């Protein structure tokens, strides 16, 4: 029983981190049709910046989260405005471009922070364990899960309850019509891309408590983000959440039961979903 509960909790908390990573990517994919392969790199930027603020300068952890998000957001914004926007009608080239940025951003981070081992950090006050019904559980994981829930609620509110969210959903369903209604889709794109990058950045800082900061993050988190988006479906917060929790749980139990084959299981699930239901479980893109 303990085994089951422990892994379930691990799965859910990791899943919430995956949600933080993948939600932005999912919305950008659904809205702009762009597979931003550099999304993991944005996460990595956030993680490194967060480490610098929280550990290197020893400043407030909340500030680290904010600045991590902001720097990732600005990098993402630059990518969109200066590069992706110019390739509007060429989706292939856009994807290739984002992949070029993975190399550039990863190497830049190595240049600035060195290619050494993982930089680990934990928010002060969040280290240690908490007692959950006879079991000890790391507070950091709970904090991650809670952050995930908070972001999920905010995003869901944004998606379903605000005009901006309505514009995004309209843009996903029918681009031409939305533009025809006088909605400045370009601005919506720009802001959405920034938001997605911002979330990736704060995810980087929050998740660093679990994953640390290292240069391999750009590819490792990309892998997970892609799997989550494929399984859960692109374009909706609900999809990203469902996919993330599912994958988190599969990963947790997979690692506990067949450690060498956990990644293999991930890719297999991804392939099966792509074949059976390419739009994912709750996919939204028209």
């Amino acid at each position, binding site marked *: 029983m303990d085994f089951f509960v422990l892994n379930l909790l691990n799965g859910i908390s990791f899943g919430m981190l995956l949600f933080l990573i993948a939600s932005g990517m999912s919305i950008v994919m659904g809205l702009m049709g762009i*597979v931003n392969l550099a999304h993991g790199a944005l996460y990595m930027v956030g993680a490194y910046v967060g480490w610098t603020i929280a550990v290197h300068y020893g400043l407030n952890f909340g500030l680290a989260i904010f600045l991590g998000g902001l720097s990732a957001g600005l990098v993402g914004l630059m990518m969109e405005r200066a590069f992706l926007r110019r390739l509007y009608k060429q989706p292939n080239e856009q994807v290739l471009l984002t992949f*070029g940025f993975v190399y550039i951003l990863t190497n830049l981070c190595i240049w600035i922070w060195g290619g050494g081992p993982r930089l680990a950090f934990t928010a002060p006050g969040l280290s240690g364990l908490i007692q959950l019904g006879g079991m000890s559980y790391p507070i950091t994981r709970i904090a991650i899960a809670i952050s995930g829930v908070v972001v999920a609620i905010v995003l869901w509110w944004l998606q379903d309850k605000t005009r901006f969210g309505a514009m995004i959903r309209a843009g996903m369903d029918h681009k031409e019509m939305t533009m025809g209604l006088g909605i400045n889709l370009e601005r919506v794109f720009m802001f959405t891309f920034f938001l997605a990058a911002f979330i990736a950045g704060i995810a980087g800082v929050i998740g660093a408590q679990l994953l640390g900061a290292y240069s391999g993050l750009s590819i490792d988190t990309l892998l997970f983000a892609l*799997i989550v988006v494929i399984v859960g479906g692109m374009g909706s917060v609900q999809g990203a959440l469902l996919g993330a929790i599912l994958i988190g749980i599969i990963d947790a139990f997979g690692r506990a039961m067949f450690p060498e084959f956990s990644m293999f299981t991930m890719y297999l699930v*991804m392939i099966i979903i792509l074949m059976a239901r390419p739009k994912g479980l709750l996919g939204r893109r028209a």
Partner: protein
Amino acid sequence: MGIARLKETIKQPWREQLIRFAPYIVGGVILILLPAVLPLYLRSIWTKFVIFAIFAMSYDLIYGYTGLLSLGHAAYFGAGGYAAAVLMFHYGIDLLWIGVPFGILIAALTAAAFGPIALRVSGMYFLLITFALGQLLYSIAWNVKWLSKPGMQGIAGLSRPELGIPGFSWSTISFYYFVLVIFLICFFLIYRITNSPFGYALRGIREAEPRMRSLGYNTWLHKYIVYIISGAFAGLAGILFVYYNNMIVPAHLAVGTSFLPMVMVIIGGSGTLLGPVIGSLVVIFVEYFASLFTPERWPLILGAIFVIAIMYARGGISIHLSRLWKRISYRYGSIKS
């Protein structure tokens, strides 16, 4: 080109002929003679460039000509390489005449198996599924003990293949000429394929697939066939790479390796014969020279070149070269421009 065509060609004025074939003649001469005069270390890099030119040409078949953007082509490169490596390491079969066909077969079978899976979807989803399939093979290579030499990931310490000629041993230059012969065969085959009705059908699929179906083409079948052929060529490159490199690691199946032919084709020019070759030349040699001066910054340089090529050099280097060539030939030849 049939005998009749050849006769026709010969009848044309010799100056025109020379100009039309000059790029290929010059290229051929360089490929044949240059390595003999290069210093040893550059000879080896030159060999690597030719091997990756085959890999890049294989990718151009599916991306440049057919429009299939795959993020997992290294799966076939690695499949061929691992097949040859495993033959040598586990079964002691290092005869080239067995290793090469076997590796090509394994790579082609892998492509035949993955093809129906990948081709069920298109666009963004095709990108993701090819990525996942490549990574799947990578994780298999990482985890299955049989595919690694004990104590490491992958297989190292392989020697060059046997030619079956007693007393023969490879030198850098003889190995290069072996690779060059294979390259020239591949180049010729791809030249034929891309100029055939099948090759033009691929271009049609790239430009307007629904139209092709209405014209009578079973586009899925065309895509499947070229996918397998491309996988076979990629596998051949992988085999040559194992012979050259004397080792193979799981990373040769992963997305990082898949990225290389993509960069080469973009930089050199997609949908052309020479584009991938030029791209391979540029990438391999810039990598080499970068590694001499700033080894850690190489991925940054590669990424930057790649981004610049996508943004500003549409059509790649080969388009600019061919325009330049047309201007030269127009000035000096009697060809209508």
